[in-house]
């Protein structure tokens, strides 16, 4: 019979390396028509980070994402970057890209200031225009300013910058210190069906509330969460590299190493928690890795809720859950007509190792 259970898990996760310097540098060039190019040494590994970086640069320059072309991942032409690791691209490379864009923008402001009859500090860039703060009708198109900068002023707008999260070394004796610039938080709640005859677990639904600071692109945040949850389901229920007694990996293929497919992926409800981090670009932190962190824990808690067996080791395969259920049944005294049997609960429940 299928039993339904619910389980929750929350987590915290840092952005960037543990104490160690993990800088990113970036270069932003503004073209004569007001579009821009970002040079970054980070790598697009499928997560959409280059789109996020384009959005950050576009926001700083007051242009659209489509107006920013990103050149990436070539050691000959792009600046130093610690890379696509540690959920750091939006926060660290994003900060560097924002600062580089700001420097290029200041050149535009210097060029535009005399044309608009104000000081550079009185200018703002928004909606493809450079305008006087508080007087948006006094404006110039960013392309006109950029062209003027090149053709008349001889100041091609270009900016470079680097960013490294502020950390403090950990005391070797006590581990006290400031290892990371910032952290994100999340909660996932899983609903599962456990077949108490076979031990098979089916994840029915996952609700995922994630903090990423400002969501630079909510669609890409949702994509990360959905992918992370799928990966977390594999970690919770199926995936395991097995070795023989001689240390040889015995299931190095996708026939025997079982991963969740789209059919194993439940309804995933993604919720982005309102949050703003003053140290991140436009308040953003990151979201890549944390998305799978609480999934397995939530599923394990849901299994307990459904059938009263505590999974102490992952993955919670059907065999393991079945054996735990069997052990639990054997442990229960067979009482007929002696009142309500004492089942499950915290006392006398078997643990699976």
């Amino acid at each position, binding site marked *: 019979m299928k039993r339904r259970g619910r389980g929750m898990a929350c987590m915290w996760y840092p952005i960037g390396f543990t104490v160690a310097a993990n800088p990113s540098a970036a270069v932003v060039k503004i073209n004569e028509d007001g579009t821009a190019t970002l040079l970054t040494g980070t790598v697009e590994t499928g997560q959409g980070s280059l789109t996020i970086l384009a959005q950050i640069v576009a926001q700083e320059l007051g242009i659209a994402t489509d107006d920013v072309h990103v050149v990436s991942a070539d050691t000959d032409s792009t600046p130093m970057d610690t890379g696509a690791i540690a959920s750091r691209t939006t926060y660290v490379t994003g900060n560097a890209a924002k600062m580089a864009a700001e420097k290029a923008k200041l050149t535009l402001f210097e060029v535009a200031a005399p044309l608009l009859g104000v000081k550079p500090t009185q200018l703002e860039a928004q909606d493809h225009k450079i305008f006087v703060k508080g007087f948006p009708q006094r404006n110039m198109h960013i392309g006109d300013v950029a062209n003027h900068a090149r053709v008349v002023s001889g100041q091609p707008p270009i900016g470079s910058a680097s960013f490294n999260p502020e950390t403090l070394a950990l005391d070797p004796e006590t581990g*006290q210190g400031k290892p990371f610039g910032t952290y994100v938080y999340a909660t996932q709640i899983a609903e599962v069906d456990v077949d108490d005859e076979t031990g098979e677990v089916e994840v029915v639904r996952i609700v995922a509330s994630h903090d990423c600071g*400002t969501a630079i692109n909510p669609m890409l945040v949702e994509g990360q969460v959905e992918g992370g949850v799928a990966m977390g389901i594999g970690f919770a229920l199926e995936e395991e590299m097995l070795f023989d007694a*001689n240390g040889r990996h015995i299931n190095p293929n996708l026939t025997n190493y079982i991963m969740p497919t789209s059919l194993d992926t439940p309804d995933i409800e993604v919720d982005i928690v309102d949050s703003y981090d003053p140290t991140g670009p436009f308040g953003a932190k990151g979201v890549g890795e944390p998305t799978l962190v609480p999934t397995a824990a939530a599923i394990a808690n849901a299994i307990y809720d459904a059938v009263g067996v505590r999974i102490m080791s992952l993955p919670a395969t059907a065999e393991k859950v079945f054996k735990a259920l069997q052990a639990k049944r054997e442990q229960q005294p067979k009482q007929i007509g002696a009142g309500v049997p004492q089942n499950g609960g915290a006392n006398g429940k078997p643990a699976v190792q």
Partner: protein
Amino acid sequence: MADKPKVVDKPDVLQRPDILKPQAPAPLVTFPVEVVVPEGRQQTPAVGQRASRADGRLHGLGQTKYIDDMYFPNMLFAKIKRAGIASALIKSIDTKEAEAMPGVIAVITGRDIPCNSFGPSLKDQPVLADTRVFHAGDGVAAVAAVSEQIATEALEKIKVVYEPLTPVLDPLESLKLETPGIHAPSANIYGHKIIKKGDVEKAFAESDHIFEGSFRTQMVEHVPLEPYACIAQWDANGRVTIYSTLGRITLGRADVGRTLGIPMSRVRIVATVVGGNFGGKNEIRAEPALALLSKKTGRPVKCVYTRVEEFTSSTTRHPLIMDYKTGVTKQGKILGRKIRLVLDGGAYCSWSETTLGKACILSAGPYNIENLHAEAFVVYTNKTMTGAMRGFGAPQVCFAYESHMDEIAHTLGIDPLEIRLLNAFDEGSLSPTSQKLHSVVVKESLLRAAKLFGWNGLGDAGKGNGA
């Protein structure tokens, strides 16, 4: 005489009654109203837009060029001979027969690598094993041939003589100081981290309840859609261009320069669009070997790992053994927590130090715990190396601290949501390392998830028996 006004050609006009008829005025608004909304990519302000990805169209049309889609004139194909034995001394490697095969252009072994060691923190990993095999997926020779099939066949012709050693496979066994060191002469513990705060024993003495639990997690692979792939091209100026599925080109260039003994200015690394990383592509693999094969043959050399190699010869997730002891009040407030973590570090260090640090710092959970003692060890075993993988130890410790939390909640009869809200961080809370935390929204995430889910206290089994 003035020109006569031109006579309007009446008959023609009459034949076109539409001109004579008064035209109905065009409606001011036509329904349905068609408003052209620019895509998210084209809108300002850019931040917060659901902007589509610039690479999305190419992916959708199947036009993205991955490394396996790239060909250069005269390109050769490389394959790597794997040890297939977890722990052994290499007595000899005979490549003569393979080299004599038609279509085989070059064969190299670890002895051809100028500096045969690399690693992001400890330089304990050979590009190709030369004297000692540390795990079954170690490469011992690399072949470049005119086709993948010939290169694969040539691997069979390479004769390696091993002196087998007893492999150490259990991390707890490896942790014992009397166990022979895998990377002799030192012990197998290659990383240790400790976090101490307050007085744990005193806290346990003051607690109403003590809970203990031992949790374990398994080794898993990243399984990216695109396996490791690389093309190396050594040019006549002695400069090498490497196209690789690398998530970290800066570190990759440093490692390639170091292992080949050439200045970084002579190394160019280009990471094309990478088909999935998840932490498994954060360090070099066969780049130096391919560069040398290209140098030796004067031709570009490509290597794409098989799925088997992706499992056996790339990094994986650390299995953890996690012992938890927690003292709580009757109300469920955590007073003290003691944690011991043992990480199975596999054959090489790779990103173990980062994983060790993050796992240890995060192991207490997002909770205010004034008395904490967390200690973590990472040990070598003769298994596939473990390294960076999405979460760096966090999914493992989260499984432990959140399972443990539910144990406590169920025993004390407290709702799992309530016990978490009671202990969770607030704005300005101090982390286990006494870092003052900012923009903390763990309680908000708990409450929002509970509301969205429709959380209403304990479920069936929590109340009785899953009925």
